[in-house]
C-alpha cells in the first residue's frame, strides 16, 4: 500500500511540528525557543495550506510568523535572552497533566476526523467581499481594538509597569 505524496507530507510535517513544539517548551535559550516557535508557525501554515486553506496559510505566515513571532524574538533578544529559567518542582505533575490533556483531546476529537471533507476552494475575491460586507462590523471592531492594543502596548512599555 502506498501513501499519496500529500499524506506523506502531512505525516512528515506532523513529526517536524512535534519536535519544534518540544524545542519551544524545553530549549534553555529563549531566543532559540522563540525561533522554534516561528518555524512551528511555518509548519502549521504548510499544514493549513495542505488542508485546503491557502489564504489562511499566507495570512499566518505574514501576520503571525512575520510580525507577531518576530516581535517576540526581537524583544527577547533585547531583554538579554529572557534570563535564567527556573522550572517548577512539580513539572513532572505538569507533564502528567499535559499528557492527560492530550490523550483526552485525542479521545474526544480523534473520532471526528470522519467529519472532514476536503473544502471547496474559496477565492480571495470572495473573502475580500465578505470582509467588506457581511463581516464589516467585525473588521471595524477588530481594527479599533488592534489600534487600541498597539497604543496600550507602547504606553505600558514606556511607563515601565
Amino acid at each position: 500500500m502506498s501513501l499519496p505524496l500529500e499524506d506523506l507530507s502531512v505525516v512528515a510535517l506532523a513529526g517536524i511540528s512535534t519536535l519544534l513544539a518540544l524545542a519551544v517548551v524545553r530549549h534553555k535559550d529563549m531566543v532559540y525557543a522563540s525561533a522554534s516557535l516561528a518555524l512551528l508557525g511555518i509548519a502549521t501554515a504548510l499544514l493549513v495550506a495542505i488542508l485546503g486553506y491557502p489564504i489562511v496559510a499566507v495570512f499566518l505566515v505574514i501576520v503571525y510568523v512575520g510580525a507577531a513571532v518576530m516581535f517576540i524574538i526581537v524583544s527577547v533578544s533585547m531583554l538579554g535572552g529572557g534570563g535564567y529559567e527556573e522550572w517548577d518542582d512539580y513539572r513532572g505533575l505538569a507533564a502528567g497533566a499535559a499528557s492527560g490533556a492530550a490523550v483526552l483531546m485525542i479521545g474526544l476529537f480523534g473520532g471526528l476526523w470522519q467529519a472532514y471533507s476536503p473544502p471547496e476552494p474559496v477565492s480571495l475575491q470572495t473573502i475580500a467581499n465578505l470582509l467588506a460586507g457581511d463581516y464589516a462590523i467585525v473588521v471595524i471592531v477588530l481594527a479599533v481594538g488592534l489600534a487600541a492594543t498597539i497604543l496600550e502596548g507602547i504606553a505600558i512599555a514606556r511607563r515601565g509597569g
Partner: protein
Amino acid sequence: MDGGAAQVVIILASLLVGLGAYGLAGSRNLVRQLISAEVVFNGILLLIIVFLSRSPIAANMLGILLTVVVAGEIIIVVAVIAALYRRIASLETSAIEEEGV
C-alpha cells in the same frame, strides 16, 4: 487529502495543546509561558480548520480573525513583559510575587 491525514492532524493538534499546557504549567518564566500559549494556539487553529471543513468560508474567516486577535495579544503580553523586566530585572513569576508588582 483524505480522512487519514485529517486524523494525523487531529492527533498533532492534541499533542500541541498538551505540550503547550506543559510549558504553561511547568515553567516560571514569562517568555516561556507566552510562547507555550502560542503552541496551544497553533493546535487549536489546526483543530478549527479540520472541524470546519464543511463550511470553508467560516473556517477561512475564523482562521484570519483568530490570527489577528492572537497577534494583538502578543503585542500586549510582550509590552507587559518588557515593562516588568525594566522594573524588577527578572522574568520569573516567583520574583514578581516577591516584588509584589
